[in-house]
């Protein structure tokens, strides 16, 4: 039976919802969704999202088994292009089964629709979910990858990592059932090692049970072979490269290779951290090698010859390590410094919080209004006009005129006034109303000219650093050439 090829993760898949361990709250939500799903106007699809191995798919199958629903599954191993989804899930989602039961459609790993194979898959799913009459369950690790549009039509249920204690209980039950002698301590170690991933824990257990001898009970020491291949931790690798583990060039290089990062990212991590490790002289020495390494990275980009990564890696790992030699003896041993995090540029942008981020949309709105009004590109308005508008708004009369021309609303005025003075913003808004009917249409065109002139003005100010205030007459003199410019 040890040799049997049935995977335990399949064999011991829960058959009832209450056998799905952990995540009681999620199961409760799922049950409730399933009760309502056949009623009219309910959400026909549910998204079960959570980390790997926490029972999302198991819960979906257990639900189907409990309700007596027929299951159709499309997982990541199937091709899931828009065409396939439309032709398989489409009809399935609006037809009953031959035996008139409900049909449950399970789309596993629905957040992993990418590549050319799956092109258009997400859109197709959204369309189908909208029109479906049969329940659909989507499982995902990262719900944010699935798009807001789709989520709006789905009931979103969150699954969490399974606690090590729960993992242990399941492993104990399985090993008893499969008649495997194994120590509790070994199981605990397996459970911890799984990091909340029950599936990988069960797979590990099965792997060990096959490989270890049948006679003796499996002890904790025996499962050394059962360690998952863990991706290198960046800070561990850095400490090797900085010579904390002794001066060994080979191990520095293989440590770097164990990372699941491209040399392009690794070099940033090394650069970010190692300036704090060394004195000036050896820092310079290391920097020299890093720059050589960076040159190879540049060559990779230019020539699309990824062989150069090899040299880049060697230079960044070994070269930096060699800097340690220079200061050997100057310092006693290696002390762990505060770790400096390197974030990829796109992550940095996403994590940025505060004023800039908040005011982003407001600036966009303003830029759009200016672009429409002055017939300039929106990007131009955003970068060259919007930043200077607050300066014009210091003058109340001008503020009212601009408000009238651009038809700004109170929040926008308040934003331009520095987000503080709501009363003043309202005052300007009312002034603007008072201004516009009196002047009539002719004046509007003149105001347009004024604004355009202003636009040009501050551009010129930027370039020539001319004083900001200019005479009205002078503005209209400039006007022709400037409007021509736009």
């Amino acid at each position, binding site marked *: 039976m040890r040799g049997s090829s049935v995977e335990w993760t399949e064999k011991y898949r829960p058959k009832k919802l209450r056998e799905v361990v952990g995540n009681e709250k999620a199961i409760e939500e799922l049950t409730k969704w399933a009760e309502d799903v056949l009623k*009219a*106007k309910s959400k026909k699809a549910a998204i079960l999202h959570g980390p790997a191995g926490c029972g999302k798919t198991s819960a979906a199958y257990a639900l189907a088994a409990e309700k007596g629903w*027929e299951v*159709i599954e499309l997982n990541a191993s199937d091709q899931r292009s828009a065409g396939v989804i439309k*032709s*398989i*899930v*489409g*009809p*399935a989602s*609006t*037809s*009953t*089964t*031959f*035996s*008139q039961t409900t*049909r449950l459609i399970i789309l596993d790993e629905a957040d992993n629709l990418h590549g050319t194979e799956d092109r258009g898959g997400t859109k197709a799913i959204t369309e189908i979910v909208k*029109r*479906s*009459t*049969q329940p659909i369950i989507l499982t995902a690790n990262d719900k944010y990858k699935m798009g807001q549009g789709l989520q709006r039509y789905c009931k979103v249920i969150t699954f969490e990592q399974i606690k090590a204690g729960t993992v242990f209980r399941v492993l104990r039950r399985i090993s008893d059932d499969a008649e495997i002698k194994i120590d509790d301590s070994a199981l605990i170690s397996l459970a911890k090692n799984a990091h909340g991933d029950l599936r990988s824990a069960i797979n590990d257990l099965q792997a060990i049970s096959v490989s270890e001898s049948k006679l003796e009970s499996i002890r904790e020491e025996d499962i050394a072979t059962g360690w998952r291949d863990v991706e290198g931790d960046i800070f561990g690798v850095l400490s090797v490269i900085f010579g904390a583990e002794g001066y060994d060039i080979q191990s520095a290089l293989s440590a770097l290779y164990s990372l699941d990062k491209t040399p392009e990212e690794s070099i940033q991590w090394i650069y970010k951290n190692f300036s704090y490790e060394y004195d000036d002289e050896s820092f310079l020495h290391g920097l020299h090698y890093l720059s050589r390494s960076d040159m190879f990275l540049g060559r990779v980009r230019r020539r699309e010859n990824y062989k150069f990564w090899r040299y880049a890696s060697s230079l960044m790992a070994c070269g930096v390590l060699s800097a340690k030699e220079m200061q050997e003896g100057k310092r006693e041993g290696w002390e762990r410094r505060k770790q400096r995090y390197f974030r990829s540029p796109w992550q940095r942008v996403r994590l940025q919080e505060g004023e800039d981020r908040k005011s982003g949309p407001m600036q966009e709105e303003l830029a759009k209004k200016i672009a429409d009004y002055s017939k300039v590109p929106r990007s131009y308005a955003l970068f060259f006009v919007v930043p200077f508008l607050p300066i014009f708004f210091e003058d109340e009369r001008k503020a009212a005129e601009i408000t009238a021309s651009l038809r700004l609303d109170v929040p926008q005025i308040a934003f331009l006034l520095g987000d503080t003075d709501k009363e003043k913003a309202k005052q300007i808004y009312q002034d603007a109303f008072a201004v516009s009917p009196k002047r009539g249409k002719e004046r509007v065109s003149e105001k347009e000219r004024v604004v355009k002139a202003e636009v040009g003005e501050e551009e010129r100010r930027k370039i020539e650093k001319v004083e900001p205030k200019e005479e009205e007459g002078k503005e209209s003199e400039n006007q022709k050439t400037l409007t021509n410019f736009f």
Partner: protein
Amino acid sequence: MFEAKIDAIVLRECIESITAVVDEGKLRIAEDGLKLRAVDPANVAMISFELKRDAFDDFHFEKGSDAEAANESPAATEVGIDFNKLQGILGIGGSDEVNLKLDEQAQKLFTRMGSLAYTVSLLDPASLRKEPKVPELEFPVQVIIKTDEFRRTIRAAEKIGDHIMLGVDGDEFYMEVEGDMDKLRLGLRKEQLIHLTPGTLHSLYSLDYVAAMSKGMSHADNITLNLGKDYPLQVDFEVADGKGKVSYLLAPRIESE
């Protein structure tokens, strides 16, 4: 061991009726002929296919000494075949007689059409979808209609909508398609049909499937439609001059409110 000779036109007709619903399936070869039952990937349509040994000009089947297969089913062997591919090749082969020979050891099917020899690699039956259970269905109404008439209506319907209603109203059988703009209705009195059980009921089906099925039945003269109220549709017809039987089953469509 399986070896047979069959008329290319008959074989093509049979395979066309299969590919109308599925691309691949488990063909069951036994002493009395061939059988197949398969569902489409969406589990919406099903085909039951049967071809008696009389349909072949020559038919030899002997149960091999394969112990494993012998346990399961004493007098049959199952092979996974990609019918879509086979159909494509048969189209080239012309109208000669086709020789079929199965090599179970090598998991290959040798076909020879005149001077053209084609070796089909068999699919692993374990990798194919499980054979469906045939649900027990009772159809209150039965309609027998000329295939041409049915197919013509479906062809017209395809231009209009994406689902079709089949129903019986008293003594009349009707097919109705409603698109965004247009509506098409075929109504046939009892006299215009070969057979009709009177009743009042209708069901809605996905037109894509009905259209695909109508291609598979092109060689039959008449088809039998078994209907119910919001119930699966069963279409029966004969192939190979009555020596083969095909039956399609199609799950009904449910409209969202």
